[in-house]
């Protein structure tokens, strides 16, 4: 898995490419923590190139969402997950915990 972060004035975009499982999830967690430590709480997670996310990966998203939503200072939104990823999110009910957008632009505009 590869993670990249792009910081903009109002919002940050985190992109992961590949598989998010128990061996790679800590790296994703580090990327999110680096943002929230700097007070960046509006985060778009671009999932278009995520091939697989295990429950350990979901826990990373959940932890980050909790941190960002505290005191109403922001949130994590999910952009353009593939169908397979959507199914995983739906199975665990995570589509009710995150706003999911079909386009990156829309996600950035709404966070």
């Amino acid at each position, binding site marked *: 898995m590869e993670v990249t972060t792009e910081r903009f004035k109002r919002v940050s975009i985190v992109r992961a490419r590949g598989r998010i*499982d128990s061996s790679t999830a800590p790296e994703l967690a580090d990327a999110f923590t680096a943002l929230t430590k700097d007070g960046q709480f509006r985060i778009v997670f671009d999932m278009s190139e995520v091939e697989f996310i295990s429950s350990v990966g979901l826990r990373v998203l*959940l932890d980050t969402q909790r941190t960002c939503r505290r005191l109403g200072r922001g949130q994590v939104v999910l952009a353009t997950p593939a169908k397979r990823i959507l199914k995983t999110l739906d199975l665990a009910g995570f589509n009710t915990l995150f706003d999911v957008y079909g386009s990156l632009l829309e996600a950035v505009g709404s966070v």
Partner: protein
Amino acid sequence: VNGQTAEDRENILIVDDTPANLRLLSAMLARNGYGVRAVTSGLRALASVQAARPDLVLLDIRMPGMDGYEVCKQLKADPQGRHTPVIFMSALDATQDKVRAFSAGGVDYITKPFQVEEVLARVETHLALQRLQRQLRVANEKMARELALAGQVQASFLPSDLPSIPGFQVAVTLKPASETSGDFYDINPLPGGRVGILVADVVDKGVGAALYMVLCWSLIRTYAAEFPDEPECVLRTVNHRILADTSANQFVTIFYGVLDPVTGSLVYCNAGQWPPHLFIGGKNGTTKRLTRTALPLGILEDAGCGRGVVELDPGDVLVLYTDGITEAQDDAEALYGEERLMATAIAHLGGSAQAIRDAIIEDVRAFIGDAPQFDDIALAVLVREPAVG
């Protein structure tokens, strides 16, 4: 060095066919507080190691009869001497001699004629490494024992004898990826003849997940008896308790159903578990997926919890499983998947609960091949026996 007794003194075996070298080294090491044994041939060296294991061996390479390389190889092949560090000493200074010394199992190489300080420094370095390795080995063994014990304690929570359910067959299995498991199942007799059926999965695997799993299991058992016909009350209360009592960033997905064996009705809640499959009407029948009615537990305080109801008619089969099956990976990282699981179960409909369970486990194992089992697996198969006649 001062104040050491003979017992905690570290012992060094010196092997050299030149008596002058032996005397010099022995005197120098003894002066620095080491216990020293000296022998003049390879065979004597091996015999000496057998008699009492030294903490380190200083080994000459060129000796009549058995040379140093051979002594080292034999020493390393012996369980008694395998962990003993060997430092080679030789006037040979070519790179290939050093390479050969290391490949024979040596940890270091001293070129003759040697400097006293250099020998002492190298000896002390390798003895220190050896001490650390020994501590690590002891700690590892202790940890392995504790893990195995944790696994046994945990396994003792699971029902060893499944309760018999009139008119039903049940087969279960739990295959942890390590000593302890984050997955669990329970088949729990409830007041009024009903039976609680549970399959759950704590995020991640290993000891942390296992501890959380034991907490969840005991909470569910407690509240299952409290609300024997309201699975949604059980999960709602457990969720409340988990959030109140733990600060761990952890969650658990649970399928919990209450079966009435007389009518075959199953009232259930699915809190983010992979949907169990209900096979209705045999091989040419239909399949119903018992999808999510609630969020996983441990996430939101006021998460709503809905319920579903299905009927198991005679001959119907319910397969409950965790993501250790659907997300099992083969060598090429392809996933086993829900479709293949469903197809395997359908191919074995008509068989006993045990036969269906075994067929699924066998198929998952065949799919994984040589790849390691990545996640815990829990599987439960419930068959309503066909009506007689």
